[in-house]
């Protein structure tokens, strides 16, 4: 099946976007560069990010009123898929997809949107520190009287794994207040009470850090949302993040399939290329079925997300669990079908496997998403 998305008029634009993204990443995020960053420091790839900013990608999802292009999720999904294919850093997803979606939530005060969305669009990195969906929130928010009669909060606690926090100028933190009500608060990393420590994950292609909040004071005008509004904003973060992880995993799966098929065509054993053995080619066929079926699920979620469709959450959970599990399996097959060489550090198979496995759990693991989907689609009586 082709990689194109639909017969509608904008399909050509998406195909063009995909082609240009792939060409850009082939040039600026080639396998050698990915390799050189594995053992390297904990920095972001500032040069690549600068070029991504020059392309205008961080502005794609930001509403037009705040200096962005106001595009929907379909464009984002195309870019994220290509980033996954190229094993590129995750900054784009963390800031331009997830943080932009959180700030665009209806309840977020206008002043905060006006301050931060244009900064994201122009390349400043803002990230979200979120407890894994389904896990208790470890950051406590205590109310303190603030200016103008409004309450600010003091936040304290640690979020263990936050994508791209070391590159961020600001972090949106999910917390709970004394009454157990959720609060979403923005802190700046320049604040001396905010400590960001790099955390090396098995997936070495992206950067993560822990975020410690040592009684950080959040003024009232930095509180993004409280109560039901905060729940809605966190829901938005999970939806956009999960859909992005599904797209990332799809890109990984696609690339693994391509690599396996290339290998099958050139590796000779028993006097013939191994791709001519039925035992091998049938597994390749299964990889293709997995990738193509994940593709339609991702495209469907992307089509419905960000356009106010009440059914979007179900479609995202469907795509996230299906693609997360499916592409992790594909990436595992990528190791197996390369034989011994596929298990070496110098071969890329383990990079794809570790990335797919992490995509599978970020922004809600498959069990969490299936449970949410079941709640929306499977009656209880």
């Amino acid at each position, binding site marked *: 099946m082709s990689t194109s998305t*639909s*017969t509608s008029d904008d399909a050509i634009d998406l195909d063009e976007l995909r082609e240009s993204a792939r060409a850009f990443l082939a040039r600026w995020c080639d396998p050698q560069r990915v390799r050189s960053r594995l053992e390297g420091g904990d920095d972001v790839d500032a040069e690549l990010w600068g070029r991504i900013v020059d392309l205008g990608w961080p502005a794609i999802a930001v509403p037009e009123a705040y200096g962005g292009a106001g595009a929907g999720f379909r464009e984002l999904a195309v870019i994220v898929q290509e980033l996954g294919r190229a094993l590129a850093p995750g900054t784009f997803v963390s800031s331009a997809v997830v943080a932009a979606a959180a700030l665009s939530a209806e309840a977020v005060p206008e002043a905060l949107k006006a301050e931060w969305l244009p900064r994201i669009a122009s390349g400043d990195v803002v990230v979200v520190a979120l407890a894994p969906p389904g896990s208790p929130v470890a950051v406590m928010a205590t109310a303190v009287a603030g200016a103008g009669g409004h309450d600010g909060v003091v936040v304290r606690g640690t979020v263990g794994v936050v994508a791209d926090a070391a590159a961020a100028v600001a972090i949106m933190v999910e917390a709970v207040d004394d009454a157990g009500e959720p609060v979403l608060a923005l802190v700046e990393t320049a604040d001396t009470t905010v400590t960001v420590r790099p955390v090396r994950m098995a997936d070495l292609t992206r950067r993560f850090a822990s975020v410690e909040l040592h009684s950080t004071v959040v003024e009232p005008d930095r509180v993004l949302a409280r109560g039901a509004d905060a729940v809605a904003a966190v829901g938005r973060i999970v939806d956009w993040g999960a859909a992005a992880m599904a797209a990332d995993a799809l890109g990984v799966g696609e690339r693994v399939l391509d690599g396996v098929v290339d290998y099958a065509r050139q590796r000779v054993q028993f006097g013939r290329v191994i791709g001519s053995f*039925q035992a091998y080619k049938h597994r390749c*066929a299964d990889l*293709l079925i997995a990738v193509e079926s994940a593709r339609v699920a991702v495209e469907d979620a992307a089509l419905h997300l960000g356009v106010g469709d009440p059914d979007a959450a179900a479609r995202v959970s469907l795509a996230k669990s*299906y693609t997360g599990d499916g592409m992790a399996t594909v990436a595992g097959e990528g190791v197996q079908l390369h034989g011994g060489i596929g298990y070496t550090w110098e071969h890329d198979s383990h990079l794809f496997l570790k990335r797919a496995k992490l995509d599978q759990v970020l922004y809600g693991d498959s069990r969490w998403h299936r449970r949410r*989907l*079941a709640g929306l689609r499977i009656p209880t009586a």
Partner: protein
Amino acid sequence: MLAELDVLSDFRGEVRRWCEANVAPGWRSALNSCSEDDAVAFQRAWFMTLHEAGYAAPHWSREWGGSDSSLAEQIVLFQELSRADAPRASLAFIGLFHTYATLIHAGTNEQKQRHLPAVLDGTVWCQGFSEPEAGSDLAGLRTRAVRDGGRYVVNGQKIWSSGAAHADWCLLLARTDPDVPKRKGISYFLLDMRTPGVEVRPIRQASGDAEFCELFLNDVVIPAENLVGAENDGWRIAQATLSAERGPAILELAERMRTGFEMVLDTARHCTAPGGSPALADPEIRDRLVRCHTEVEVLNLLCLKMIENLLRRGGVGPEASIIKTYYSELLQRLTELAVELSGLDVHVLASKPRASGWISGEWLVDHITSWEWTIAGGTNEIQRNLISERVLGLPREPGMD
């Protein structure tokens, strides 16, 4: 595509009202215990009911009596028939899809005029492709057709001819030149099943039904006018026939899988989990149900995408093998889930209504029958060969010509 479906609400309402008026609620149980003849009579009557409404041949052009429906209209029609749990026109299936695709692709005007309107009048077709020694290796077929002036004399044996016991005509592949590579010596014929020398023997299947048949052909005479396309060009034409069953026809089955999932839910509603709590409240069962639901939705998305690609590009590509494989294996998993939910009771022998499609709610029979789909129409192993060779470009097995 989605937008198109939305603007078809008038058509949807029309089909829905028609279903309410014409689908007898008790049709399954009425068929459950009736005789073979009554079942065939029911099929013929249901087909004519569909045809009178203009719903039997939505994919046919108006020139040949079809409705020339847009793809979106076909989808809406399938959705509504499926939603109403209407019977399938299974006896007419080969005529509607295979015969039509073959004759439109390669038939003469005379052949079209003689046979296409007849399909809509109720002529039943079967397929004479597979042979005992030519299953997955279909091109290795041995049935011989020898030209003798204005006619061919055919000898050989066919197998797995679905519905042949009730068929009036047969789409037949036979070897006309044994001295050339196997794909180049096959011709495509239209065989009148009443011709002397044609003998049909039903085969009892694993499900207990006897829908598939063996076909014995002894000195069967076929007039040369019933050759389709050029002599020895039959293999190429057969691809059009086979693509018909892997193309838009699968849409109906994908839609019916959704109804099938609703039936699984209904089964779960009446079951208890180990420990005695309601099955629908059991976390493990809910997880299995939601996985199944996910796959059913993915199947529908895959079908829509394939159809969109078809519209853009024309013809049926090798990606149809992806759908066939996915559909059949999902059918197996879905019926397996239902069987497991149903426990011991489902093993009590039940017969299955004919025309029910592949999901009747008699779950054990449905599950056994699901192997028809993973084997028929090219086993899933052959589909995986096609996918790896024609989509991924991997080399053929050495020695497989």
